[in-house]
C-alpha cells in the first residue's frame, strides 16, 4: 500500500480553493484576458460550408487590399497532419473536404473589422459531393470515405460461453447460452450528440522567438498540444512551449481540439512573424469543435424467471465523424461499460465505430460510457417489466460484489461500493415508499421516481497507465514550502487545490505551504492528460509519493542537524541548490490486461453510484420538471468533500441536460442551432435540488487514504434514472434520447 496516516489533516477537509480569490474578484486571467502583445494580430479560420466535396481552390478577391492580411493555406504547413491516434486529419483541407466546418484556410489581420471583411473576400471553390450522414449509411459501405469500409475500429469482448475461437463461433456460443435461458429480452437504444458548452469558448495566443514556438491557451492537456505542434511544425521537443491559461471549463471538449487551434494560431504567427490571438466565438466553437459520439446499442439478454441474469449479447455502433481523432478510445470505454454494473456468466459485446461526413466527435465526460450505460440501464428496466419485478430489486439482485467477475473477467477486490450506494440512495430518497404509492397525479401533472445504478472505471484502460508513465515533479522551496510541477490541469474541477492537499498531508506541512506551478511544458513533466477520471487517483498518487520522498529527505536532515522542518529544508537547499523529486507512476502490480483479447483488469478500480430522479411530467405539454435528484457515490475517499460533491452535481446536471433538452439539430450535415439561445442547457430554474451522498470505500492505492476517480461517473446515470422516473409517472417508455416534450408527445400518441 502506498499510503500512511497523514500527519496533518487537510485531506478530507474542504479548504478554500486556492484559485478561489482570483476567480471571485475577476483577476483570474483566462486566455482572452491576457493583455495584447506588441504587434499582436487577430486570427480567424475559413471553413467548408458543405459536408463533403472536392476543394478546387481558394480565390482571393483581387480588389481587396491584402497588404496587411496574412493568409495561410495547406501548402504553408510543414507537415499537414494532426497527430493523434492516427494522422490522417489534415491541419487544413487539401483536395478533399470531409465535413462541414472543416478548416480550409487561415487569415490574420491587426484590425478585427478588416479581418471580418477579408473573410468575405475569400471564396472557397468547393464542388459538393453526396455525403454520408448517419451510421447505417456508413456501415452499408456503398460509398467509402475512410479506409476500406468506413470502420475506424471494432472490439469484441467475450465471456463464458461467448469465449470461442473467432467471432462466428463466439456468437454461436452466446446465442446458445441465450436460447437456454428462461426469459430472453431484446431492446434497441439510441443516444445523440452533445455539445460540451463550457462557458469559456476556446482560444489561443501564439508567437515565435529564438526559443521556438510559444502557445498559451484554454486547454486540458498541454502535452497533447505539444505533440501535435511538434509534428506539424516539424520541430524538436524543446522548441515547442505550451502553457495553460486559466481555463473556463473543458468536460473533454478541450482535450484534443485545442491542439488544432494552437496549431492554426502558430501557423499564422509563423507566416506573419507576429503574435496571433485566435479566440473562437460561440457559434464557431459549437460548429467546429468535437461533440459526444451518437450511438445505437442493441441488447439481448437471458435471465432466470426470478431475475438472475445469465447471458448478455450487445452490439454497439458509434458515429465517429469524419476523422478518427480519439474515436477508438471512446469506443473502447463504451464497450467496457456496456455490461453495466452486473454479473453475467456469459457475454458477447461487439462494437463498431464508423466514419461519417460530420465534424469529428471526440472526448466528452464519460467518453462512450454514458451511451452504453443508458442502454444497459434502460434494458434492466425492460427486463424488470418482462418478469414483473421491481427494477431496483432486479438491480440489487445482480449488482456486482467483491469477488465477482466483470464481463472482461476482472475479479473485483477492494473498494466495491455499489450496494452501499444503492442502499444509501434508496433510503435518502424514500424510493420504495414513493414507488409503491404509484405515480402521484395532481390535476394534469404526474409525479414519478426512477433509479439507475452504475460504475465507471477510473484511470486509463488496462495497461494504459503502465505505458503512459505519468510523471510529477515536486520541488523543495525556501521557507519549508513545496512546489508541485504537473501537466495535470485545473479546468475548474479543483486539481490545484486537491493536489496541494495531498502534497501537504504527505509532507506533513500546511496546505498553504504548497505551490502549484503554472502548467507549461517548459517547466512541468508529462503527467499524462487531464482526462479519464485519472487526475486525483493516478496523478494524485504520484504527487503523494513524490511529496513524501522530499519530506523524508527534509526529515532526515532534521534528524541529523536539528531545527524545524523549514530550517532543515533551507539547509538542504543551500547545500544542494536544487532538491526535487521526479516521480513516475507505478500502477498496482497485480493489474493484468490483454489488449488483443480484451480480457483482464480493464481498470484498476471502479467508482460506483446510484442515481434517483424524481420528476413531474405535465400531461398536457409533456414538459418534465426534475423535482429532486439523489445521488450516492462511492468515491473511495473524498479529498475535498465540497468540490467532490460539486463535481457530482455538475456532471449530473450535464446528464440531465443531455437527457431532457440538449440536442444538436442537423440539416444536411450542418448544425442549425449553433448558439446558446437554441442549444438548450439547463438554467438554475431547470436544475433540481441535488441531494448528494458521498460513500467512502477506500481504494488502497489511491492518494489521501484511498481516493478514486469520479470526474466522469456522474455523467452516466442521470439519463436512465430520468427515463425510469418518466416511465413511472406516465407509463411512457423512452429508449432514445433526448426525451424532449416533442418526443414524449410522439411516444404518447403512438403508445
Amino acid at each position: 500500500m502506498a499510503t500512511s496516516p497523514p500527519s496533518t489533516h487537510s485531506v478530507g477537509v474542504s479548504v478554500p480553493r486556492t484559485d478561489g480569490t482570483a476567480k471571485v474578484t475577476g483577476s483570474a486571467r483566462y486566455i482572452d484576458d491576457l493583455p495584447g502583445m506588441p504587434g499582436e494580430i487577430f486570427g480567424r479560420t475559413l471553413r467548408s460550408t458543405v459536408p463533403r466535396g472536392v476543394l478546387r481552390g481558394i480565390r482571393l478577391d483581387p480588389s481587396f487590399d491584402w497588404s496587411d492580411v496574412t493568409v495561410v493555406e495547406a501548402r504553408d504547413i510543414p507537415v499537414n497532419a494532426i497527430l493523434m491516434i492516427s494522422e490522417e486529419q489534415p491541419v487544413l483541407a487539401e483536395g478533399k473536404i470531409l465535413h462541414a466546418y472543416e478548416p480550409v484556410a487561415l487569415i490574420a489581420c491587426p484590425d478585427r473589422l478588416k479581418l471580418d471583411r477579408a473573410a468575405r473576400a475569400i471564396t472557397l471553390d468547393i464542388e459538393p459531393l453526396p455525403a454520408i450522414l448517419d451510421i447505417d449509411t456508413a456501415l452499408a459501405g456503398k460509398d467509402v470515405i475512410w479506409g476500406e469500409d468506413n470502420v475506424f475500429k471494432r472490439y469484441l469482448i467475450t465471456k463464458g460461453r461467448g469465449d470461442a475461437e473467432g467471432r462466428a463461433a463466439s456468437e454461436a456460443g452466446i446465442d446458445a447460452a441465450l436460447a437456454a435461458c428462461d426469459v430472453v429480452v431484446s431492446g434497441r437504444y439510441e443516444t445523440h450528440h452533445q455539445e460540451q458548452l463550457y462557458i469559456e469558448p476556446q482560444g489561443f495566443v501564439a508567437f515565435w522567438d529564438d526559443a521556438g514556438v510559444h502557445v498559451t491557451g484554454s486547454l486540458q492537456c498541454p502535452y497533447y498540444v505539444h505533440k501535435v505542434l511538434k509534428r506539424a511544425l516539424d520541430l524538436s521537443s524543446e522548441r515547442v512551449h505550451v502553457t495553460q491559461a486559466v481555463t473556463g471549463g473543458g468536460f473533454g471538449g478541450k482535450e484534443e481540439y485545442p491542439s488544432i487551434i494552437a496549431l492554426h494560431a502558430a501557423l499564422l504567427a509563423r507566416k506573419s512573424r507576429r503574435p496571433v490571438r485566435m479566440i473562437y466565438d460561440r457559434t464557431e466553437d459549437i460548429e467546429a469543435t468535437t461533440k459526444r459520439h451518437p450511438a445505437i446499442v442493441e441488447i439481448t439478454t437471458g435471465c432466470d424467471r426470478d431475475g438472475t441474469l445469465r447471458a448478455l449479447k450487445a452490439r454497439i455502433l458509434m458515429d465517429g465523424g469524419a476523422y478518427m481523432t480519439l474515436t477508438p478510445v471512446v469506443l473502447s470505454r463504451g464497450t467496457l461499460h456496456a455490461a453495466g454494473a452486473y454479473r453475467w456468466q456469459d457475454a458477447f459485446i461487439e462494437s463498431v465505430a464508423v466514419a461519417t461526413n460530420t465534424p469529428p466527435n471526440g472526448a466528452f465526460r464519460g467518453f462512450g460510457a454514458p451511451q452504453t450505460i443508458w442502454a444497459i440501464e434502460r434494458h434492466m428496466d425492460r427486463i424488470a417489466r418482462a418478469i414483473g419485478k421491481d427494477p431496483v430489486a432486479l438491480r440489487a439482485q445482480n449488482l456486482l460484489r467483491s469477488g465477482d467477475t466483470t464481463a472482461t473477467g476482472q475479479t473485483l477486490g477492494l473498494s466495491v461500493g455499489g450496494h452501499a450506494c444503492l442502499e444509501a440512495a434508496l433510503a435518502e430518497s424514500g424510493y420504495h415508499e414513493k414507488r409503491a404509492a404509484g405515480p402521484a397525479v395532481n390535476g394534469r401533472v404526474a409525479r414519478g421516481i426512477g433509479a439507475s445504478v452504475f460504475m465507471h472505471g477510473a484511470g486509463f484502460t488496462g495497461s494504459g497507465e503502465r505505458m503512459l508513465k505519468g510523471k510529477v515533479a515536486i520541488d523543495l522551496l525556501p521557507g519549508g514550502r513545496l512546489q508541485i510541477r504537473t501537466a495535470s490541469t485545473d479546468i475548474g474541477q479543483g486539481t490545484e487545490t486537491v493536489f496541494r492537499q495531498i502534497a501537504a498531508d504527505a509532507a506533513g506541512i500546511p496546505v498553504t505551504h504548497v505551490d502549484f506551478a503554472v502548467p507549461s511544458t517548459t517547466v512541468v513533466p508529462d503527467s499524462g492528460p487531464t482526462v479519464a477520471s485519472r487526475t486525483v487517483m493516478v496523478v494524485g498518487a504520484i504527487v503523494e509519493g513524490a511529496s513524501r520522498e522530499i519530506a523524508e529527505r527534509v526529515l532526515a536532515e532534521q534528524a541529523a542537524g536539528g531545527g524545524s522542518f523549514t530550517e532543515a529544508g533551507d539547509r538542504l537547499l543551500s547545500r544542494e541548490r536544487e532538491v526535487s523529486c521526479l516521480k513516475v507512476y507505478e500502477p498496482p502490480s497485480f493489474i493484468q490486461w490483454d489488449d488483443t483479447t480484451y480480457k483482464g483488469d480493464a481498470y484498476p478500480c471502479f467508482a460506483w453510484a446510484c442515481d434517483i430522479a424524481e420528476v413531474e411530467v405535465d400531461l398536457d405539454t409533456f414538459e418534465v420538471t426534475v423535482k429532486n435528484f439523489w445521488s450516492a457515490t462511492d468515491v473511495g475517499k473524498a479529498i475535498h468533500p465540497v468540490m467532490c460533491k460539486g463535481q457530482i452535481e455538475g456532471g449530473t446536471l450535464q446528464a440531465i441536460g443531455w437527457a431532457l433538452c440538449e440536442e444538436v439539430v442537423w440539416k444536411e450535415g450542418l448544425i442549425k442551432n449553433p448558439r446558446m439561445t437554441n442549444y438548450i442547457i439547463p438554467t438554475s430554474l431547470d436544475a433540481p435540488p441535488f441531494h448528494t451522498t458521498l460513500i467512502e470505500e477506500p481504494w488502497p492505492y489511491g492518494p489521501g487514504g484511498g481516493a478514486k476517480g469520479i470526474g466522469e461517473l456522474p455523467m452516466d446515470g442521470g439519463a436512465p434514472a430520468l427515463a425510469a422516473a418518466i416511465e413511472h409517472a406516465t407509463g411512457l417508455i423512452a429508449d432514445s434520447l433526448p426525451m424532449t416534450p416533442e418526443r414524449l408527445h410522439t411516444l404518447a400518441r403512438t403508445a
Partner: protein
Amino acid sequence: MKISFKVNGAARELDAPPLQRLLDALRLVLGLTGTKEGCAEGECGACTVLLDGEPVNACLVPVGQCQGREITTVEGLGAAGHLSPLQRCFIDHGGAQCGICTPGVLISAEHLLRRNPDPDDDAIREALAGNLCRCTGYQRIIESVRAAAVLRRADARDVGDPRDVGDARGARDVSHDRQEAP
C-alpha cells in the same frame, strides 16, 4: 462620442464609438477583464454588470447609452484582502469551479441580496436564471448565496449599518401561475 460615467465608484471618461459594447469598453478600454464574454447574445450572463443598480448583459449595452450612469463590475464587489461576504462564501461553499461564469453570477447575486436580504431557494434560482453555469449544477452556487445572505445580515447587525435593502417583493410567493376567478 464622449462618454462620462462611473465605474465601480470612480468617474471615467472615454471617447468611444457609441455602439461599442459596454463589454468591450470595460475589457479593452478600461482593462476590467473580470467581466467575461461567453456568447455575445445575452444568453449566458457571463458579462452581467450592474447599470444604475440593475443587472444587465454588458454585451447588449451600447456604451453610448451609459452617459452619466453608474456601472458596477465584479472588480467593484471586493478585492483580495477585502472580499465581500458573497465572494467569501463562493470560495467556501464551492460556488466557483471553472470561474468563468462567477463574475456574472456574483453580480446577479449581489443585486438579489440588495433587494431581498433573506431569499429562499426559489428566489435565488430565479435571480440567477440568466447566468448559465456548466460546472456546478447550481447547487453549490445556491448554497453560497444562501450563506452570504446570512453573513450579510449578521454584518449589518454587527455594524449597526442598516443597508439599503430596497423592498423585499422579490421574496413574495411565486408559486401561483394562475389566479382563479373569485
